[in-house]
């Protein structure tokens, strides 16, 4: 009897497993939606979906399609009116007046009112007494509703760059759960999210501007870097925007177009200017003389990338100073001389902390360490997870040197340069120069564009000459886009504009 029972159970098990296995064979691609794009992202938006609270660049990149500010950036880095139809900046650059566009609606169908605009900006500025979201908003004195269609923002100090901050999302005052139920005015509306799985957006039919072409956008999280290429080749992902050079090469000859742009950041060996030996400008200069950027680019991404010589990347063409790339060129003798002068004739060793989740920075660190050996300096590479980096290096400033890329949160020169003021709360490298502080202050205060630009350039020059950091490059960015799609545009900011994408065979619509 028992034997029979055992056999029956086994048989049942075999049958059920076989059924599942057979089911598996017929299971692929059944639910392909004709007007859908699946975009792979390396990390989930482990963040609030409230556009004013979310901070991760990856979150902003997605939410760019859901939210809009009074103005928004275009792919040239200029500001185009969005929720506002036009704006007027007073001559003293202290009063910004926005006329709201007719017929802009939130994704829940309600009209955008002047109250919503005031609410959104007040919320960012922390005028209710809370801390402002970013330092620039602390300059807001008041937000005034002039009439139903006009909002005026008065600043405490003149700021000609303030428009850049008015890209901040306009959200409805009536939304009770902005953390989990984002409602904006952008071309796509939020549908759902499932942690570590996906985020789904859908075209918003009531959009005021040029409507999106693709109905549905699925962001699929691919946490394992090794499976990105397999997912692309296997057809479960149509687009991936941050491939390494090696991954891009693996996709050659496949169904994907590989587009090449830049990441718009400044990759450098960021030095803790307050810690020995990096508190000595000669030591910092010596390191700058020891490295060869071309060789780094050659090793890390096959020669792609753009040199930078200060804290400004080329997409800011108004401020970028190519000549600063030549302040230091590899010269071991000079480097050794400087080290000897500084009291390190035999070199020294230091810890180079690198966040392990950024392969490009890890690779760069290895090349840099090799190059520094030439002048007797030993860099001990210490890989840390991103979170430890944020708390130890960035918040506590407890490090000697680190390699990361620093990008701009808005399209302003001050977004790149503000942090190097002596007292800036984000000055994690403890850079301190009274000349720099003075130049930056003057740049900020100036209302004349030419003068302002000149002061910003002075700031950049000081950073280069003081060798605040060992500047390396703006990293190349590779985008894989299935040949079915077209219309990808690189922005000088960390955003992906999905509304511009279209199906190649219906692009004449």
């Amino acid at each position, binding site marked *: 009897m028992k034997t029979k029972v055992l056999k029956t159970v086994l048989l049942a098990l075999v049958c059920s497993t076989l059924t599942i296995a057979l089911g598996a064979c017929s299971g692929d691609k059944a639910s392909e939606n004709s007007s859908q794009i699946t975009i792979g992202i390396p990390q989930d938006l482990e963040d*609030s979906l409230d556009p004013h609270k979310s901070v991760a660049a990856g979150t902003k990149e997605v939410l760019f399609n859901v939210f809009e500010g009074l103005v928004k950036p275009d792919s040239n880095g200029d500001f185009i009116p969005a929720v506002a139809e036009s704006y007027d900046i007073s001559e003293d650059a202290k009063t910004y007046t926005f006329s709201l566009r007719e017929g802009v609606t939130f994704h829940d169908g309600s009209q955008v009112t002047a109250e919503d605009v005031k609410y959104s900006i007040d919320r960012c500025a922390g005028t209710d007494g809370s801390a402002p979201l970013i330092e620039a908003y602390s300059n807001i004195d008041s937000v005034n509703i002039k009439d139903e269609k006009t909002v005026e923002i008065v600043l405490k100090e003149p700021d000609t760059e303030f428009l850049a901050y008015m890209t901040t999302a306009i959200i409805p005052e009536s939304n009770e759960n902005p953390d989990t139920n984002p409602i904006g005015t952008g071309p796509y509306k939020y549908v759902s999210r499932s942690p570590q799985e996906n985020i789904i957006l859908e075209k918003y039919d009531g959009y005021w501007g040029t409507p999106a072409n693709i109905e549905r956008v699925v962001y699929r999280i*691919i946490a*394992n870097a090794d499976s990105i290429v*397999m997912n692309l080749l*296997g*057809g479960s992902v149509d687009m991936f925007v941050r491939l390494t050079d090696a991954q891009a090469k693996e996709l050659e000859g496949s169904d994907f177009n590989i587009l090449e742009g830049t990441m718009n950041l400044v990759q450098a060996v960021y030095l803790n200017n307050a810690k020995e030996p990096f508190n000595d400008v000669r030591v910092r200069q010596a390191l700058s003389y020891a490295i060869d950027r071309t060789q780094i680019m050659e090793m890390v991404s096959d020669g792609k990338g753009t040199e930078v010589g200060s804290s400004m990347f080329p997409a800011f063409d108004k401020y970028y100073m190519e000549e600063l790339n030549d302040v230091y060129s590899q010269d071991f003798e000079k480097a050794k001389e400087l080290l000897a002068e500084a009291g390190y004739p035999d070199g020294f060793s230091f810890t180079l902390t690198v966040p392990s989740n950024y392969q490009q920075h890890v690779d760069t660190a290895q090349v840099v360490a090799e190059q520094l050996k030439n002048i007797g300096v030993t860099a001990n590479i210490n890989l840390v997870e991103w979170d430890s980096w944020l708390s130890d290096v960035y918040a506590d400033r407890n490090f000697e040197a680190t390699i990361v890329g620093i990008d701009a949160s808005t399209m302003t020169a001050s977004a790149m340069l503000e942090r190097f003021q002596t007292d800036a709360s984000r000055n994690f490298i403890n850079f301190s120069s009274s000349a720099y502080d003075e130049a930056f202050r003057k740049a900020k205060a100036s209302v004349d564009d030419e003068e302002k630009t000149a002061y910003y350039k002075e700031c950049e020059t000081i950073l280069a000459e003081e060798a605040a950091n060992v500047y390396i490059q703006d990293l190349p960015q590779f985008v894989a886009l299935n040949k079915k799609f077209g219309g990808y545009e690189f922005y000088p900011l960390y955003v992906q504009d999905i509304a511009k994408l279209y199906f190649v065979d219906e692009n004449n619509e």
Partner: protein
Amino acid sequence: MKYFGKKLIAMAVTILVVSFLVFLAFAVIPGDPAISMLGTEATPERVAALREEMGLNQPLLVRYFSWVAGVLHGDFGTSYSYQMSVTEMIGDKIPVTLMLTLLSFLIMLVISIPLGIFTARHEGGKADRFIYIVNQIIMAIPPFFSGILITLLFGIILRWFTPGGYVSYDVNFGQFVAYLFFPALAIALPKAAMAVKLLRTSVASQVKMDYTRTAYSRGNTTKDVFYRHILKNALIPVITFLGMTLADMVAGSIIIEQVFNVPGLGRILLTSIQNRDYPVVQAIIVCIAFLVIFVNFLVDIAYRAIDPRITLD
């Protein structure tokens, strides 16, 4: 009844200890959830305000007990990073991990029991030696690597499934199970190999026992003796092993979920640890602890079903 009472108390104590250890661990490792949430836009003022808001300034014990109190009310708190209710977040993922574990277990049973019995009955034969070698090889391959091989073979070359083409259970249950079959296979293979080996050895030791000879001498056929006497006794250590394996599979799924891009508990656990998202980590650890205890309980029951001499006290 006394047995259930004991089990319940043991369960409560285990979960308390485990969750407290997790709390302690987070107090020791570097990283701060407030800084983690604010990223590179953290200013000392915003960090301080956020820490206050999240209650991180309270002493460890106070935080721990307020967490326990919440759990007793069925409230696991809100995820720091997602700002979602933890119950909602995890509730969504439990079926994924359970199904993956269940499938792996099924596959393991289907492979190991018949094969184990076969090799035991044909000990020393050509087939046995062949299976022995294959077994050794499979045991030596770590699941994440077999996962990559399976993806390459069935996903890219044979195209039986789309790598990364996971379909959620609430969208299409059939496709959901179908996709999970391959990761389950990767988890099951090494475990199955071990189970085969164990069953074979276990049977071999029973064959030499006195009762086996007695059974033969009473005129039973070989088949009879094998299934009615030997197998029953040989299964006891195997069941212990299977129980341990089931618990182990939950852990194994964490790695395999990464390889196959399956958004289960493991993925959430991993990223939550990286983000210092304590409430989520706590809840998942409690779930896993509960699962392990529950499996042990099932194993106890299975013992009793196979061998009535074993009592549950």
